[in-house]
């Protein structure tokens, strides 16, 4: 079943097209990431799902029901806010129980549910404290518990890991992923960190300028970027100019080529080109070499065993034809 459906949805703020003609369908139980730089429209899409924004045009459905005009408090959707938005005047337990309280669940029952939710996010016994007494990571877990205690059908997460340090972020990524699997709830996750999106999501929508540039599995988006923007934003693929692609016997369009698909030397069935080494840096397991070839700067990841070419040296490089992907989204 489709959890969230966008049909030609736009949201304009005056002349700014924050979301511009977006179509997407998020399946039930899916971990869906919306990836893009700031101002790309991903957060506005999330707010459209939560009900804080109404579309200027288009149609939104949540589990088959029309969402336009339905206020946030009547949607079976909960949000983990970027700044967590914990209520400073309430204790942690009251914060988590808030959603149940306004729904009229009896006090003993809602406090018990809140305790369980806190245990689920590994904060048992923290209920009596105030939000101000917790660390950033702990507040993040409380925000998660506060949303999950309502048993939403869709959980929206707005850059939930943005304010955490690297180690904590990696730990939370794993926890979020396993939480999502065990609960089976649809997660919609907004991030500007492509590593986060690639490692956690079942599918990724890459946003730029209010439009979806590409929608696919992490592998598709990573290996076969449809546009130059996606190639650049998700994991720095090489983008070959149409002339260069044509000179190698491919259609005259922009094409992407992953740095790790390129090898030194030639071999049977491989496409080859020559160039001059502009820079080389030793990374341990591999060497990253930048080569100038017919006006293109092409990065290649070479295994350390292949030897390190010196800058200025002329080299022959090759790749398998199936590793080069013409980009349909670019002319």
């Amino acid at each position, binding site marked *: 079943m489709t959890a969230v459906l966008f049909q030609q949805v736009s949201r304009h703020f005056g002349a700014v097209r924050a979301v511009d003609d977006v179509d997407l369908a998020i399946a039930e139980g899916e971990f869906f990431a919306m990836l893009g730089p700031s101002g790309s429209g991903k957060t506005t899409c999330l707010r459209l799902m939560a009900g804080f924004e109404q579309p200027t045009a288009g149609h939104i459905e949540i589990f088959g029901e029309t969402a336009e005009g339905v206020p946030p408090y009547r949607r079976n959707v*909960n949000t983990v806010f970027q700044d967590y938005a914990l209520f*400073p005047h309430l204790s942690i337990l009251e914060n988590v129980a808030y959603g149940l309280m306004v729904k009229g669940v009896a006090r003993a029952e809602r406090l018990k549910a809140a305790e369980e939710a806190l245990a689920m996010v590994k904060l048992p016994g923290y209920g009596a404290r105030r939000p101000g007494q917790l660390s950033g990571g702990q507040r993040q877990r409380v925000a998660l518990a506060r*949303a999950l205690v309502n048993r939403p059908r869709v959980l929206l997460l707005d850059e939930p890991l943005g304010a955490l340090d690297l180690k904590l972020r990696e730990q939370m990524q794993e926890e979020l992923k396993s939480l999502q699997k065990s609960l089976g709830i649809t997660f919609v996750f907004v991030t500007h960190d492509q590593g986060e999106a690639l490692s956690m999501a079942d599918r990724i929508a890459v946003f730029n300028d209010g439009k979806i540039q590409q929608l696919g599995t992490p592998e598709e988006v990573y290996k076969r970027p449809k546009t130059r923007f996606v190639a650049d934003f998700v994991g720095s693929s090489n983008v070959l100019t149409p002339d260069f692609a044509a000179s190698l016997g491919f259609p005259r369009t922009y094409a992407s080529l992953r740095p790790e698909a390129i090898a030194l030397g030639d071999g049977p069935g491989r496409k080859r080109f020559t160039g001059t080494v502009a820079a080389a840096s030793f990374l341990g397991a591999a060497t990253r070499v930048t080569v100038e070839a017919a006006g293109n700067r092409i990065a290649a990841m070479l295994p350390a065993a292949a030897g390190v070419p010196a800058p200025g040296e002329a080299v022959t490089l090759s790749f398998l034809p199936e590793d080069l992907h013409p980009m349909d989204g670019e002319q």
Partner: protein
Amino acid sequence: MRSDRNTAAPLGLKIAAGCGLLFMHLPILLIFLYAFTTEEKSYQFPPPGLTLKWFAVTWDRPDVWAALGLSVRVAAISTVIALVLGTLCAAAVSGSRFFGRETISLLVILPIALPGIITGIALRSAFSFAEIPFSFWTIILGHATFCVVVVYNNAVARFRRVSGSLVEASMDLGADGFQTFRYVILPNIGTALLAGGMLAFALSFDEVIVTTFTAGQQQTLPIWMLEELVRPRQRPVTNVVAMVVVLVTFLPILGAYYLTRDGDQVAGGGK
């Protein structure tokens, strides 16, 4: 500008500061002193004798009770009006962006910046123009103009700290507008409203200028005192009333001061 704790201020400065404080507060002490004097016609120093009889005399004067009752009612109703209007206005100005927002903010604050005499004349001519007879309610309208400002100023500062995402979080968790106000906004702005309300009450209680222009035959307590000063009989009664006014206005202001101070600590603790 912070003075170092270890270096004492020069003696001259200490004396000057002491004199300044005495100049401000000695007259108030004299008011208290003359409430107990036995001499009723002039303020002779030192008082020829001390007595408590003026408290009994004041208690038995119906005109004092009438003026006090009027002042309390005016202050209470003005404060209630100010609380409602000031809170709504603060919510609108801090909660949304719209054309003319800054102008409205300025126009709301203006009555307290304007000299009271201007507000008074303006209201008086407006009431005459609209042929509204001067009454209890015209006094309240006059007082509400500046009481709203006090409440608004207190509330708007606090509204800014109740970030928009708290309201959104509440709605997201299933609370409608009323529940959000009741469970999230009110607990966060409550002390600011109490402080604003107390200040408004105190301001209204001792207001003279606007009242003179907007009152009909009624006398609020401050106006009663002004009239009483020109009469040579039972002068210490005025002093007794003045003591009561000091207590009635001083306590709310002190309370407001402590409430807003605590509020800041609570908000700071959340960071």
